[in-house]
């Protein structure tokens, strides 16, 4: 089993969600994050220019069984893509075990 963590543009969230839905990845968690990066956003306030490196993104955490890994990554890459700097990143890591609390199933079965 793998954990796929993706940082994506908030504006792309609905497309990513639908793309995941299409490949039957229906369960995942997400939250809004603020990050720091190379992309600077220019602002002007009452005649004073300033830029902020605070970047607003959405963080998705998806745990899938091994056969789902590639298509999940592919679906995110495709749906979160704009081609501009700041499209985000995907991290994949090994998950040692998963449990479903209600039934105490474990392993890939608990992910269905």
């Amino acid at each position: 089993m793998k954990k796929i963590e993706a940082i994506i543009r908030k504006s792309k969230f609905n497309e990513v969600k639908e793309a995941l839905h299409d490949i039957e990845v229906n369960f995942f968690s997400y939250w809004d994050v603020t990050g720091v990066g190379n992309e600077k956003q220019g602002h002007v306030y009452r005649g004073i220019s300033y830029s902020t490196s605070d970047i607003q993104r959405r963080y998705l955490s998806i745990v899938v069984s091994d056969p789902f890994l590639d298509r999940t990554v592919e679906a995110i890459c495709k749906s979160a893509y704009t081609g501009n700097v700041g499209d985000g990143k995907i991290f994949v890591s090994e998950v040692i075990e998963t449990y479903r609390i209600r039934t105490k199933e474990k392993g890939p079965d608990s992910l269905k």
Partner: protein
Amino acid sequence: METTLLTVNNVWMMICTGLVFLMHLGFSLLEIGLTRQKNTVNILFKNVFIISIGIILYTVIGFNLMYPGSFIGGVLPDYFIDLFGLSLPENGLGPEYADGGYTYWTDFLFQAMFAATAATIVSGAVAERVKLGSFMIFTIIYVGIIYPIAGSWKWGAGWLDELGFYDFAGSTIVHSVGGWAALIAVWLLGARLGKFKKDGSVGAIPGHNLPFVTAGVFLLWLGWFGFNGGSVLSAEPGATSLVLVTTSIAAASGGLAAFVTSLMKYKQYDLSMFLNGILGGLVGITAGADMMSITDAIVIGAIAGVIIVLGVALLDKLKLDDPVGAIPVHLLCGIWGTLAVGIFGDLAGVGQFLNQLIGVAAVGVFCLISAFIILKVLKSTIGLRVSEEEEREGLDIHEHGMDAYPDFRTNEH
């Protein structure tokens, strides 16, 4: 028949009183919107204090100080009769009082609403770093004594009035009186942390709620119908309707001029400048709202709008930190509006211009000196400014133990 007219006039004046009262909500929203979330409760507290103490002070002494009624030798206000408290004069409720424009009670309350405005102007300029106690003491002295004295020179039939100085609704008598004190206060207080950096650059400290600022400015515009409309001092149809028109036109052209100027200067459609420009136009037309033609009102408003944008930039250059733009709006546009009476409209002329200049200078010197003395004494005794720690963490928590939005305290703002 006379009493019917008095009734109509008086109703209009009471509506105007209510409209001027509403301006205090406008100022409150404007000030909290242009400052950071962590100081919201503090600013609101100051605004609530100002209107409350303002009315009491005006009851106790202000009204009589401002309208002495008679003068010893024609110059010195005769304060020996009835300086304290309100006492209904003979015929105070009849058509003989104030040419049947309003009753004594209406007179008092309308003027009381004006009085508090002067301190509200200062409140915005000193926001986010002034010590609450010091500000309250300053307000008590300034609204209780300084404002009524300056006002008596013109509206109390004092020496500026004799001279021929004209200030219809208070570009100088109200707005500049607040503006001069704001200037001194900002200078003595110093800038907010992070406003002027060590490398010489100017930092932006964005306000936390532009929708509030917008609501505040619309309320102020509405309130100005009472501020200027009521300054006709009756419901005289021609004058009141003209004043409402010139007031609105100047507001509109002030806002447009400010947004175009800031667009040309900074290549940005800056909402806060647009809104400040509207206020600049309103302050600008206030001195001569009943004397101006439509074209005059457009020009006066537009110049006020340009003054706003240049004034904000000038203050940054002078390292004076005025978070809400109170000095450009109330001081610079107040001066401009007062001088404009000598340049445009029915009174225009060299003699009038000089009278206007004398009025601006006299009130300016008086306010600068008195504000300096009060604030300097406060600075060297109890201090004007909160501690650095308090400024960083917010005045709301330190002075009041409260958050304005307890569920939304997400970052340092």
